[in-house]
């Protein structure tokens, strides 16, 4: 064997049958193992995966196999984009994909789906996370404050620096950060430290306009204005508006 047109049959929990190319199906380590150790002509049962989910998963596997084999002319960036769109599904589907990717042992898909969920949590406040996942807040105000204090330690950074990262500095960029520090804020854009400001200096001004001298000639000159407001105990929200001049 070794023919690329070998097909494998898969039957799902809801009795749907899929016939797929072997190269695609064996992206799943589970299917690969069963195929190589069982009878290759019979149908492989995927008990815990439904037809809809398997269909999506097979799309993923096909795309990645074709891309790796050079059958499709697709750059790594385009594949990355495709993956990002692939996980734009409702949450129930996303969680089903996680369970199925684990069951079928497709590591790259498991990482992709888990990372997607992690990104819904990291960098967010608890109330935003509750909204995202439709979870009822069952804390009283006092209890919530106690839990917040209990869990803030992983965010208390040395030197009390709050940092905001901007991926790309376009001509006109607006960005917001919430910092729980009272001392300094540091802004990083395109991997360079663009500015560091003492929050106490910002405190007395509603907005400031400052030109920063570029550290090297290729760095754009940046004019920024900053507004700040209190958003609860110990938190300040800073709203930056950058204008670039190349």
């Amino acid at each position, binding site marked *: 064997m070794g023919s690329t047109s070998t097909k494998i049959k898969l039957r799902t929990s809801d009795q749907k049958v899929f016939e797929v190319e072997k190269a695609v199906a064996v992206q799943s380590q589970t299917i690969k193992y069963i195929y190589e150790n069982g009878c290759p002509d019979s149908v492989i049962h995927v008990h815990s995966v*439904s037809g*809809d989910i398997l269909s999506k998963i097979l799309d993923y596997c096909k795309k990645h196999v074709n891309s790796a084999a050079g059958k499709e002319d697709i750059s790594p960036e385009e594949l990355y984009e495709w993956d990002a769109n692939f996980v734009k*599904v*409702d*949450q*129930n*589907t*996303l*969680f*089903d994909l*996680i*369970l199925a990717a684990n069951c079928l042992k497709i590591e790259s898909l*498991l*990482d992709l789906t*888990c*990372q997607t*969920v*992690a*990104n819904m*949590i*990291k*960098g*967010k*406040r*608890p109330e935003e*996370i*509750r*909204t*995202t*996942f*439709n*979870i*009822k807040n*069952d*804390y009283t105000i006092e209890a919530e404050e106690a*839990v*917040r204090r*209990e*869990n*803030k*330690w*992983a*965010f*208390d*950074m*040395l*030197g*009390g*620096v*709050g*940092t905001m990262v901007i991926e790309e500095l376009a001509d006109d960029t607006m960005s917001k*950060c*919430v910092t*729980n*520090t009272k001392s300094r804020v*540091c802004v*990083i854009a395109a*991997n360079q*430290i663009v500015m560091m400001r003492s929050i106490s200096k910002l405190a007395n001004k509603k907005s400031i306009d400052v030109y920063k001298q570029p550290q090297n000639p290729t760095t754009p000159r940046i004019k920024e204005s900053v507004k700040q407001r209190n958003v609860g105990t110990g*938190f300040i929200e800073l709203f930056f508006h950058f204008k670039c001049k190349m």
Partner: protein
Amino acid sequence: MSAAQRRRVNVHPSDEPESDYSGILNEGILLLLFESIKWDLQVLCLTASVNRKLRAIAKRLLWRKLCVFRAPCMVAALANGAPNGRIGGGWDALAKLMFFCSGCESTRHFIVSRAIPGHFTQASRFSKTSGRSFLAKKCRGDLLFVSDPCEHPMGDKEDDLGIFRGVFRGFMRSKTRACLLRRQVPFDERVRCPYCGTRVWSMTAARLVPKSAARRLGSGDRRLEYFVCVNGHLHGACWLVPLSSDEEVCDVGEEDVDGDDDDVNEDHAGYDEVDGDACSHQTVTNGSTSSLGEDVLGGGPIDLLLNL
């Protein structure tokens, strides 16, 4: 989750009634999620803050798994070969102890000119050998891990401050605790454990600070203090003599061959066998693979704080 509980259409979150069935409340999914992101601390802290159920799952299961992942060797030693069991003070307190320098305030026997706030630490090294130096002679049978001191410069006119923490194995059955109870040492009035909030004993007041502790830290003559809480967590501070001193901090025969201390992308703490004694020390490192991970830029002391 049964098919009846799932819906297949794209639904905007605000259109749905609040639900107890979100997949994020499912233990199986949480385990897969955290394994995939290598037990990112900030994500776990946020998850544990969302609602009571998630906090309970975190306390029972997720914090334990995080500790085992980040410090397999030390956890195995502390849990007495029963890592599925409980640990004094809880696994969340141990995780905080591994990754949080508690800062320092003036206390009865140790005065600082200004208070240092606690802060997250990216990587720390805990050592049993080091811990031995903190045990009074009669308590040397106890097993205690202590971290290297976290160094805090205090200005030109003062020595650097060294802040350290540690944890006992099986504190309830330890000689140290028996000694404290026998001597009827009272709890310190003001200080509380920064990791689990319980009462603490001042080891200076209890006269249980051996000379070896100051030598071990590279501190001057007895300029240190540390506290032990009822769950066996230790925290303390010392003045660090400038390094032109003759005294070396490490013991002969203990080699730190773990070259991963400074690699913030290391996602698994390694351990070494030294002198035939498995796991005399353990480096715990927080390496996150999440897309918004902790990167140190430009070699400077800048850490990322993400919107909290």
